[in-house]
């Protein structure tokens, strides 16, 4: 018989975890939208909203990651959010232009925005959350450490 004992979260941890869950869910929803859009561009369209199915699993997955990050280190959460937002904005712009290059219909631009911003969001938030307080070796301009190895 074993008993797992966890200390009760502080108020700050609870607030940070709640914010992380909400932001993570929103990010997951956006990644789901990008997944659905990418599939539609390949000919697999939504016939009804429920066709989104398992692609929506990214919403609870995002919420879980966000909540864990907020619970453990709110600094990492906000670094991830900030970098994710920057990445999304850059990705949206890039996606819009690429969408126009590959498809001169408005749908191509919108698809580019959705997919590009989701890619930027994912990459930016991963770098931001990982890089926080990473020591930068002398001579390097960029460094990050995966959380699993910290």
């Amino acid at each position: 018989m074993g008993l797992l004992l966890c200390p009760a979260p502080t108020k700050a941890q609870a607030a940070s975890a709640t914010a992380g869950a909400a932001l993570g869910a929103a990010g997951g929803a956006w990644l789901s939208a990008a997944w659905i859009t990418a599939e539609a561009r390949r000919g697999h369209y939504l016939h009804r909203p429920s066709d989104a199915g398992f692609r929506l699993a990214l919403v609870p997955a995002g919420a879980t990651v966000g909540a864990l990050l907020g619970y453990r280190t709110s600094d990492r959460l906000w670094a991830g959010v900030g970098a994710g937002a920057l990445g999304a904005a850059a990705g949206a712009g890039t996606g819009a232009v690429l969408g126009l290059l590959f498809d001169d219909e408005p749908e191509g631009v919108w698809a580019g925005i959705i997919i590009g911003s989701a890619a930027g969001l994912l990459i930016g938030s991963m770098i931001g959350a990982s890089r926080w307080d990473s020591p930068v070796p002398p001579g390097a301009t960029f460094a990050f450490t995966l959380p699993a190895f910290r």
Partner: protein
Amino acid sequence: MKRLLTAVAIVASGCFTPVYVAQPFTPAPPPAPEDVAAVVFLVGDAGDTPMERSPLVHRLREDVEEWSASLRTDSAVSVLFLGDNVYPVGMRDRSHDGFEPDSARLYAQVFAVSGPEARQYRTLGVFIPGNHDWGNTHGANGARRLLNQEEALDAHRAAGAPVRMLPTSGLAGPAVLDLPGQLRVLSFDTEWWLQSDEHNAQEQALNDIERAIAGADGRTILFAAHHPFMTAGPHSGLTTAFDPIWVLRRAGVNVQDVNSGPYKALLNGLSSVFERTEAPLIYAAGHDHSLQLLAGAGPSDPRWTLVSGGASKSTPVAATDELEWASVEPGYMRVVILKDGGVMLYAESAPAQYLSCTNPDPAPCIEAGAAAFGTSYSRRLR
């Protein structure tokens, strides 16, 4: 830089479209029955108009009876149910708990076209498949739902109600109906197209449409389907109000929207047929839950697109260049073919409160609602 500006312009113009505001118009005079060769009622998205809640089916039945008695000519009156005849997921199997309510939803429409005058003068009740009749899904399950609906309509016809599904379930069409007044109706299953991935079968369907138009021999063409040729409703991908999936719709992800790949392929195919032969005077459809009159812009567009999908639901309409008139009130349309070749449009609607009578005792509401229907718009189409 130019491409970036173009992308910004597309995004800015796609975020929000102003909602349509009704403009004043000059009503067309009501036709004298002796001048009328045929009357076609256009009723779309009537799949949630149960008799005990919907004033519309009662008023429609009154109108059908009145016109059938006035014209006193076989098949001079017809009612085109423009798809989504059974909400929410088509006609389920007899063994399913949903079979009974599904049957009631379908019967309400059969009731509207099976009064004594309608039966005597062989008024036609034509049911065209919509995406919800295909189960609002795709694949074999959807085809089964459509077959169930067709079998139910066949049973009603065997009992004397002049109703049938056209085109036959699972076929694209067009089914051709030549009616009095030199009117040729082409009934086409656009949901079949959206579900089909067989290019050859789609080409064959377009060839059949071309032959039916080319062989019309001077008749007026009315093309009838569930999905509209153009629309200013939510299925256009335009946004007039908050829509949780608006950005996905802008990207053409929903196959039911005009801007999705398969839908655009359908419209391009029809446009090329219309350009080679002759564009129909009227393209009648439902799908968006409103009444709309849209004008074609070129030789490959139908002269008029009529969206009559407001029988049991209501959704907003955006102000677009093509839109001549719209209403979000519950209603249906009536196309009148005159003996002199003229074609008139009358839109019949009632205040929004009569979309559905949900009171514990709905009878007074249904009576008042049926009486509240009136001609909200009219004009000469030719």
